[in-house]
């Protein structure tokens, strides 16, 4: 079981962000939302760790 990582952990962030944004190219808002949902579930499965997932679900709730 690992703690949820909230410090920078992606080697080339700009690359990743560009790839993420371009995955949405040409999609309608509805398709984009659905895409995000699928992506989230795939990533969650990859993480697997239940405690980390719960911590992530909580962390994302915080509003600024």
């Amino acid at each position, binding site marked *: 079981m690992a703690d949820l*990582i*909230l*410090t*920078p*952990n*992606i080697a080339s*962030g*700009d690359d990743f*962000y*560009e790839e*993420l*944004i371009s995955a*949405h*190219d040409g*999609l309608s*808002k509805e398709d*984009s*939302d659905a895409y*995000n949902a699928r992506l989230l579930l795939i990533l969650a499965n990859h993480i697997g760790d239940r405690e980390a997932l719960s911590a992530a679900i909580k*962390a994302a709730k*915080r*509003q*600024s």
Partner: protein
Amino acid sequence: MLDDRYTLAYKLYPYARHADQDADAPVRHPVVVLGGGPIGIATAVDLAQQNIPVVVLDDHEGVGMGSRAICFAKRTLEISDRYGAAKPMVDKGVVWNIGKVFHKDGQVFDFNLLPEEGHEFPAFINLQQPYFESFLIERAYELQKQGAPIQIRGKNRVDAVTVHDDHATLEVMTPEGPYTLETDWLIGCDGASSPLRTMLGHEFTGQVFKDSFLIADIKMINTNFPTERWFWFEPSHGSGASTLLHKQPDDVWRVDFQIGWDIDRKEEMKEENIRRRLDAFLGDDVEYEMVWSSIYTFQCKHMDSFRHGRVIFAGDAAHQVSPFGARGANSGMQDADNLGWKLGMVINGQAPESLLDSYNSERLQGAAENILNSTRSTDFITPKSEMSHVLRNAVLELSGHYEFARPLVNSGRLSVPCVYDGSPLNSADALIDGPARTRPGAPCPDAPLADGFLLSKLGGQFTLLAINCEVPEALTESGVTTTVLSLKSADDKTGALAERYLGDAASAVYLIRPDQHVAARREHYDENLFRTALKRAIGKE
């Protein structure tokens, strides 16, 4: 008609009639640089320092008013130092390290750039472009006084060009009428809308961004704003979709408002309207004078090839980027740095013309990198789709709470020089345990030595740098002689040299190009292998 297209800040090279205008037949020069902007002057200074005769033609008589570029990166200062112009830039420039990011009402986070120690020059300075250009021009005149063959001809507008196999013919307009010039080599540094590019029918392709930005350079009265960079995403004062505040010398601040695509330029440029935005942004109690303002739109474009026979393009004429990340002038200076020594060697008969093709491939690689970075910043600052906007704002929100999101916030990335990985001039890396940052193709990072800094000792010619090992006093191959710099651990009090050039290796020998990029490296000196490396680095392999 030879009207100015822009107002001058400083008239530095007034028109003067030249004997070439009265010659019976067109006079032939080795190199003509078309355009006296920062990149044209830098290129000319590079050549003049090698004693190659060079004539700069510009259709104005000095430096344009208004600061386009304000951020000049370390590499630019290092190159300018090689050109003998960096000291006044640093003295005049403003150094900053603290940046703040705001979203809507509040500050999301701040950062300190914490630049690496052990470099002669800061990570970058803020300096108005007219100062930057003036210091380069002053250096050109200083060289001229010392007898270097450099001329700048003001109010000499190039109206037509005919390109031949081994030269080009230029029709030049002056206030006293036209004349014709010939040149063996023509360097096109005539800016983003390059008339030369158009005259020769070369394409300039890429992306146009549908947004306008209003720049206001203002002088603060009785106010002490800190020397920091502030960037607002979606500021609640509503005076722009994003706003940047940045300090320049002379108590001048740059305010840059993103104001959208469908705007009435004339309306927006009225002082009262600019002041309305500024007051909403700064608050009513801040007093300021307007120094300069302008509206700009931008594109990220480049030519497919920077070399067309005897015509070579550099600077904005060859590639244009968005201002985010300050890569325009900074990358153009790397063009000059890359081109100068290669053209010099070709003209002196030391290298084949094909060496210039490596200018094309290396600087195309640099341009692609710069365009990629500036496009990413632009996409973050001005999201193109609803989802891109949602994700962008999610990054901003998260960055207020969690450190992980901060590196994803992209309001412009610092301009860093290109590593020429895969360049035909490189020899395979043979320093097994050496640091990646000094691999072949990389620009040499500076390091403090017992008596000064490393880069100031690597100026302008090929150098063999030996650390903790024996090397001969010089190496001569194909008429090119390297200088030798032999250092020991005792020269490296801070350990920075070892960290940057040895890594886990006990010793190292580097072959370094005149533009301070690494051509080859290995643990020990081997005459044959370094001969081959030098041949390759001058395009003879």
